[in-house]
């Protein structure tokens, strides 16, 4: 069961270029989460995580693309969010994933906190090229 790859049922994407895009993106994530019948708690975790990552992308990556995918794996449904930017990249991912570490003035909880809120979390970054973060939240996860 664990090796089963999820099937993408539906795709959606949105360009994130300014702070005004955060709430519309979050609302769209919520719409999809409601449609697959995600519980209120998981919905809240998902949109809070989405909020962190979108804000990160705006602040450090100068905006990018937010993709929403509806997944189906076995009997479970879920939502995958992919955030891709062409920003400066993260030199030390391990450090960035540490609680309390920040290069800005924030709390330094965005990346590690989001990892705790999601079921799956993947980060790929290349200095000078950009960062791509992929997260999955299962409906019953």
């Amino acid at each position, binding site marked *: 069961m664990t090796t089963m790859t999820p099937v993408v049922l539906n795709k959606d994407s949105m360009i994130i270029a300014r*702070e*005004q895009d*955060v*709430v519309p993106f*979050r609302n769209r994530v*919520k719409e999809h989460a409601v449609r697959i019948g995600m519980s*209120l*708690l998981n*919905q*809240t*975790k998902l*949109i*809070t995580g989405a*909020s*962190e990552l979108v*804000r990160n992308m705006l602040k450090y990556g100068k905006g990018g693309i937010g993709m929403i995918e509806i997944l189906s794996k076995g009997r479970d449904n879920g939502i995958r969010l992919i955030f891709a930017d062409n920003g400066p990249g993260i030199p030390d991912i391990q450090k960035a994933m540490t*609680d309390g570490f920040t290069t800005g003035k*924030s*709390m330094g*909880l*965005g990346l*590690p*906190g*989001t990892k*705790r*809120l999601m079921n799956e979390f993947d980060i790929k970054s290349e200095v000078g090229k950009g960062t791509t973060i992929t997260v999955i939240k299962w409906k019953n996860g």
Partner: protein
Amino acid sequence: MKNEAIKIFQKKKSNILEKWMTLQLQDEGLREDLISNEDLRIQSEELLSSFISTLSDANIEHVSIDDFEAVKDILSSISISRAKQGYSPRETGNFVLTLKEALLNTLSEEMKDPEALYKQSMFINKIMDNFAINTFETFIKGREDVIYRQTDEITQISTPVIRVWDGILALPIIGTLDSARTQVVMESLLQEIVETGSNIAILDISGVPAVDSLVAQHLIKTVAATRLMGAECIISGIRPEIAQTVVHLGIDLSQIITKSTLASALKTAFTILKLEVNKKQIVKHH
């Protein structure tokens, strides 16, 4: 050797303007309530003069948009002002599209050679299409400005400070708390604390859909500022799912008094102020 089309335009300028005006006035969508015929004529004439005087042998064949900067400026200011006045995109687009019609119409009347006519018409088409695209871009930008302004206005009206009791203020926050919003909330709260001499402020976040680390940070800052003013701040309206999410995210709100409902926050406020609210005892005499 000067381009034939340019010569025709220069010679027939007033004729073109008349045709253009007729086409614009014919349009059923013309908003006579928004612009008088006189103003429309002035706008049209300004644009046409600028356009014809900018046309040259070089730029008519190879549309170089930089040459038409002046024309575009006029067009942009017209479409932005129209967007703000509430014109529909069709009405705004018609302004430049009817000019194209008038220009092509004049060319076909004046030029006898079909091949040359076709060639010149294509040039004009290309230039005017460029203008049309530009018009839509600026029109949409004008509309976006309207939306941004409304967003600001909504931020202002949706942060009222309510005096719920003598010495107790309540601030229901609805929507998301971004930096700009926090600034407004903080300013109006601190101002009100001074004006009313209140000791306690209750920030109710029942209407905040998600508390991420940025929102939490703003809440903590607001509480800290309130404390500096000598008042205590209680955060209420923390829903169960928000509480669990905040914990997973790793945000520490333990230094702040938090309550699940506004009612329990008010109760805490009463306790702090040593107030007691009791049901009236009715003493019965026998």
